[in-house]
């Protein structure tokens, strides 16, 4: 029960294509858990089973269990909407809503879900989330501007604020720095180190270097199979599996 997320014999299929193959994974509460592996190995797919976002894809079929703090989110009586309120998500391409102001981008989840009672509470929560996402100082004078003028890194932090505003228990991040310049990437990695004190962060990355910089635990996924999992130090310095060693030294690409 002290795991934030636990998968039991998790399988995902796109039609006939078996892309996640019987994965058993335990993600501890708090800290950064990096899910790494080469492009196409199934990282995004697996991440999307953790908040049932995979269901938006009608061709996808999930088999097995994903337990969120012990509770199987795939059991029949669980509403995916409720799961998603507890598990926030940040995407590979920074995607703040372009037609909403910076303020409204952060506020929208709270507003539409009716999670705040007053304008004051909303203001407070928006400020809190933007501060948590280390963006407040950069945008506090232009909350009513549109996100179009923000840099890629700022947009991604705005999306992080949008997710944090919902006060999720787990934060899923799908290669959040893949489309961000090096300076923006450094800021986001710094932010992850702060956020991991309060949240469980599942970070998908195709970069072992990034996993080494920010993760406490890592899992290595290859062709849909879980090859190795453990404390970051252990996996990087003393991998058990030859494939893992090849991957972390860059020999796999």
């Amino acid at each position, binding site marked *: 029960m002290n795991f934030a997320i636990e998968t039991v014999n998790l399988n995902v299929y796109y039609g006939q294509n078996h892309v996640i193959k019987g994965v058993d994974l335990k993600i501890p509460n708090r800290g950064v858990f990096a899910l790494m592996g080469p492009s196409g190995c199934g990282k995004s797919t697996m991440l999307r089973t953790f908040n049932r*976002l995979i269901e*938006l894809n009608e061709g996808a079929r999930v088999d097995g269990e994903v337990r969120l703090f012990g509770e199987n989110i795939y059991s029949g009586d669980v509403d995916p*909407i409720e799961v998603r309120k507890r598990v926030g998500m940040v995407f590979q*391409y920074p*995607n703040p809503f372009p*037609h909403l102001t910076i303020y409204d981008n952060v506020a*929208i989840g709270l507003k*539409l*879900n009716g999670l705040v009672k007053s304008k004051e509470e909303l203001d407070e929560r928006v400020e809190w989330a933007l501060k948590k996402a280390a963006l407040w100082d950069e945008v506090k004078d232009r909350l009513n501007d549109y996100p179009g003028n923000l840099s890629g890194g700022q947009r991604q932090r705005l*999306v992080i604020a949008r997710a944090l505003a919902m006060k999720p228990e787990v934060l899923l991040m799908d290669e959040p720095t893949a489309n961000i310049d090096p300076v923006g990437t450094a800021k986001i990695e710094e932010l992850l180190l702060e956020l991991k004190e309060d949240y469980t962060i599942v970070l998908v990355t195709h970069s072992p270097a990034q996993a080494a910089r920010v993760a406490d635990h890592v899992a290595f996924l290859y062709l849909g199979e879980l090859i190795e999992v453990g404390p970051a130090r252990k996996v990087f310095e003393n991998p058990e599996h030859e494939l893992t060693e090849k991957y972390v030294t860059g020999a796999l690409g």
Partner: protein
Amino acid sequence: MLTSNRKTKEKVFFIGIGALTILIFIPLFHIIATVLIKGFPVIAERGTKFLTGTLSEGGIGPAIAGTFILTFLSALLGLPVAFLVGVYAYEYPKSTLGQWTKTLLQIMIEFPTILVGVFVMQVVAVPMGTYSALAGALALAIILTPYVAVYTHEALREIPSTYREAGFSLGLTRAKVVFRILAPMAKRGILTGILIGMAKVAGETAPLLFTAGGLYESYPSSVTKPVGAVPLLIYQLVQSPNPVDHATAWGASLVLLAIFLGIFIPIRLSLKEVRL
């Protein structure tokens, strides 16, 4: 030598295509020019009375009022349905009905509008025993609906799926994602469809022939009574042997052109899309 030959060919080709392109737009400019040249003196001579007076006073006021009433009423009847149909086609593209919806909307856009008029006459005008604004507006609404639905559908489809995912990832219901996030995001495209549809129906004649009836000697007073429209009036005046009626028709044509451009130009100006 060879290259210069190729270049010459290219040039000839380019000029040929350019000339053809200009050629097909000649009728458009000819129409606009003729309408201006023949219509403007009529309006200038009769003054504001042309825009407000009844037909026997030398004006087309009731027809203008009728066109605005018909266009507005058809939008009122058609827009909500059209919007929902567009959303349905977007949300359920794989369902049987969803697939049929797309095909049927395309057919509706191309459908002979006079048949719409005949249909509405059968189901509304005949039972009511009279032509009416309501019947005319219903016929126009049927013509407006596919435009708005198709534009709504297209505008939603153009939104990258990552925004849809973002909406769902916030724990929103499908209805909230579609109506509170995606539809507002697509509002320019949807608005374009609405304006194009309205510009189209404001100029329609055929669907009004057997539905609206016509009313040119007094202003419309009720939606259940006959009403006039500028294009319908033009159609009737042109058939008259009287040159005064022809003059009125030219003036009315200019008014119709102004109404059309008044709806259409803002569309062109606002076409700049939301930055994604």
